[in-house]
C-alpha cells in the first residue's frame, strides 16, 4: 500500500463519496432527515469551536440559531433579499450577538458560564416572544425558502433558482430537500475545512491553550479577551447560518422552537460525536438528530408501544426513554464519542498490521 494512502484518508474519501451520492440512494423521508442533520451539523460545528476547541461550555446555542433565523425572516421575507445575502447576514447578526455576549465568559468559568448561557436562552425566548415585528410573537412567523439569483433582491415571482421548484440539472432532478441538503453540505464542508485549518494555526493553538489551562495560556501571552470573544464570534456565525437554514427548511417557527432543549441537543451532538474534532459534529448530529425521526418512523413496528387507540407506552415517551438511555450508555462506554470508537477501531487495525508485518517479511 503506498504511504500516502493512510486509513484516515481512505475514510475521508469514502465519507465524502457517501455524503455526495446519498440523496440518490434514498427516499424522501431519509433525504429530509439527512437535510436536517447536515443543517444541524453546521450549528454543532460552531459549538465545537467554542466548547470543544476553546473549552467554553455554552448552553445558549439555540439563541444564536434563533437570531440567525429571524434575520433571515426579516431580510428574506419582508425585504425579499436574495438568499445568499440573508444566509450571510444571519451569520453576521448572530456573530454580533456572540461578540456582545462573549465578554461575560471572561469572568465566568466552567459550569457558571454554562448556567449563564442557559439564562441567555430564556431571555432570548422572552425577547422573541414579545418583539412581534421580529418573530411574529407567540403564533410564530414564516421563514422564506431560499431563492438564488443574480440580483440583490428576489421579487415575489421568484429568482432563477427557487428551492420550492424542483430543478433539472443534466438529467438529475433535485427537489426541495435535495437542494437544502447540497446547500447545507457545501456550507458544512467549508466550515469543516475552516476548522481543520484553524486547528493547525496560531489562533487555533491559542484557543486550545485556553481550553487546557486558561491561566497558563494567559501567562504565556495568549490574549484571553481576544480569543474567547473570537471563539464566540465564530461559533455564533455558524449557529446563525444553521438557524437560518433550519428555520427555512421548517418554514414556519414559533418562539419556543429556540429552546434550551435545542441547545442541549447541540451539546449532546458535539459530545457524542467527539468534542474538539473535525468530523465529530457531523457524526454526533447523525446520532442525536437522526434518532428521533427514525424512531418515530419505525415506532409502529416496536413492541409495547401504543398503536392507534390501544394501550401501551406512548411513542413520544418511548422515544425519550430510548434516547436518554442511549446517551447514558454511549457516554459511559465511550466518553470520547463516535470519534473515540473510530480511533479504537483504527488502533486495532494498526496492531493487526504490525502483527502481520513480520510474518510477511519472513
Amino acid at each position, binding site marked *: 500500500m503506498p504511504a500516502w494512502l493512510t486509513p484516515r484518508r481512505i475514510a475521508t474519501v469514502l465519507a465524502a463519496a457517501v455524503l455526495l451520492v446519498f440523496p440518490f440512494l434514498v427516499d424522501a423521508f431519509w433525504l429530509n432527515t439527512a437535510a436536517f442533520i447536515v443543517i444541524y451539523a453546521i450549528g454543532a460545528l460552531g459549538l465545537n469551536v467554542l466548547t470543544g476547541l476553546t473549552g467554553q461550555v455554552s448552553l445558549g446555542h439555540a439563541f444564536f440559531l434563533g437570531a440567525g433565523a429571524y434575520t433571515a425572516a426579516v431580510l428574506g421575507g419582508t425585504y425579499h433579499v436574495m438568499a445568499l445575502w440573508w444566509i450571510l447576514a444571519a451569520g453576521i447578526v448572530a456573530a454580533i450577538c456572540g461578540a456582545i455576549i462573549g465578554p461575560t465568559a471572561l469572568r465566568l468559568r466552567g459550569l457558571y458560564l454554562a448556567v449563564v448561557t442557559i439564562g441567555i436562552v430564556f431571555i432570548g425566548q422572552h*425577547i422573541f416572544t414579545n418583539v412581534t415585528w421580529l418573530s411574529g410573537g407567540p403564533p410564530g412567523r414564516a421563514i422564506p425558502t431560499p431563492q438564488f439569483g443574480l440580483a440583490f433582491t428576489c421579487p415575489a415571482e421568484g429568482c432563477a433558482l427557487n428551492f420550492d421548484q424542483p430543478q433539472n440539472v443534466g438529467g438529475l432532478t433535485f427537489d426541495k430537500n435535495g437542494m437544502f441538503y447540497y446547500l447545507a453540505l457545501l456550507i458544512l464542508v467549508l466550515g469543516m475545512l475552516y476548522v481543520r485549518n484553524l486547528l493547525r494555526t496560531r489562533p487555533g493553538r491559542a484557543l486550545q491553550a485556553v481550553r487546557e489551562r486558561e491561566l*497558563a495560556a494567559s501567562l504565556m501571552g495568549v490574549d484571553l479577551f481576544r480569543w474567547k470573544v473570537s471563539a464566540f464570534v465564530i461559533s455564533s456565525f455558524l449557529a446563525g447560518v444553521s438557524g437560518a437554514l433550519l428555520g427555512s427548511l421548517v418554514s414556519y417557527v414559533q418562539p419556543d422552537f429556540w429552546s434550551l432543549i435545542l441547545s442541549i441537543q447541540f451539546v449532546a451532538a458535539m*459530545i*457524542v460525536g467527539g468534542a474538539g474534532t473535525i468530523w465529530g459534529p457531523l457524526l454526533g448530529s447523525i446520532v442525536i438528530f437522526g434518532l428521533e425521526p427514525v424512531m418515530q418512523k419505525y415506532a409502529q413496528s416496536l413492541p409495547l408501544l401504543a398503536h392507534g387507540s390501544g394501550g401501551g407506552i406512548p411513542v413520544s415517551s418511548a422515544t425519550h426513554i430510548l*434516547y*436518554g438511555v442511549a446517551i447514558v450508555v454511549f457516554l459511559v462506554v465511550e466518553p470520547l464519542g463516535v470519534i473515540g470508537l473510530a480511533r479504537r477501531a483504527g488502533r486495532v487495525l494498526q496492531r493487526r498490521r504490525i502483527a502481520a508485518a513480520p510474518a510477511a517479511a519472513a
Partner: protein
Amino acid sequence: MTTFFQLFVAGLALGCIYALVALGFTIIYRASQVINFSQGAFLLVGAYLVSWFSLDRSYPFAVAALLALAITALIGVIFQVLVLRFTVGQPVFTVVMITIGLNIALEGSVPALFGSTQRSIGDPWGSSSVSLGSVVVNWDSVWTIGVTLLILAGFFAFNRFSRYGLAMRATAMDEEAAMAVGLPTRRVHALAWGLAGAVATVGGFFLAGFPNSLTPTSDAIALRAFPAIILGGLDSPLGAVVGGVTIGLVEELTAGYQPNNAAWLGTNFYAVAPYIVMILVLLVKPYGLFGRRPAERV
C-alpha cells in the same frame, strides 16, 4: 401593603421550593463537581410517586410521601453506583451530559407509567387557607415553608455534626486526600445522590400542591432553580437557600408589580427576572454570593 405581604408570602413559599431543588444541586456538586441536570426529573418522579401512592393506592399521605422519598433516594443511589461510578476521571461535561441523558429518560418514563393527564398530589390540606389579618395564606405555603425549614435544619445538623456529614465535607474539599485517610468516598458519593433524590421529592410534592397540579412538564421548575444555585455559589448549601429564597421573592414580586408598572418589559417577564438578577450578580461576584474562588496554580 396587603398586596406586598401577600406576594411576599407566596415568594417565600416558592423560594423554599427553589431552595430545596438548589440544595439537591449543591449536595451533588460538592460530592462530584458536576451539575446534576436530572434533578428536575427526580422532582417529577418523586411527586408522581406521592400522587400515585396516595390517590391510586390510597395509602395515608405520610406513608405515600415516605415511600416516594425512599424510592427516589434509591434511584439516585442506583444511578450513582451503576453508572456514574464508571465515569470518574472523565471530562466534567461528559458526566453532565450523562445526567442530561438520565433526565430525558426519566422524563419520558413519567407519561409512560402514570399517563399524561393532569393530576393532584393528594395532600390532606388541599386548597384550604388561613387568614392573618388581611393576608390570606394557603396551608400549602405554610407547610412548604415549615417543612423546608425543618429539612434545612436537619441537613445542616447532619452536615455539621454527623460522621457522614464530616466525610461529605472532607470529600468536597479534597477527594484524593479524603481517600488517602480512608474515608469511604464511594459511599459518600452514593449518599449524596440519595440525599439529592430525596430532597428533590420534597420540593416536587410542594410544587404540585394548591394552586398548582402535577403534569409531565412540572419539572421545568428545576431550570428556574439554576439562578438560585448560581446566585448562592455552586458549592455552598447556605448559598443555595439564600439564592432560592431570593429568586422566589424576585419572581413573585415581579409577577405582582411588573405588569402594571413596567408593562414595556413584556408579558411573563417574571419568568426571566431571576436570570437577569443572576447575570447582574455574577458580573459583580463571578463565583456567586457565597461560593469559594478556587485557588489557581499553573
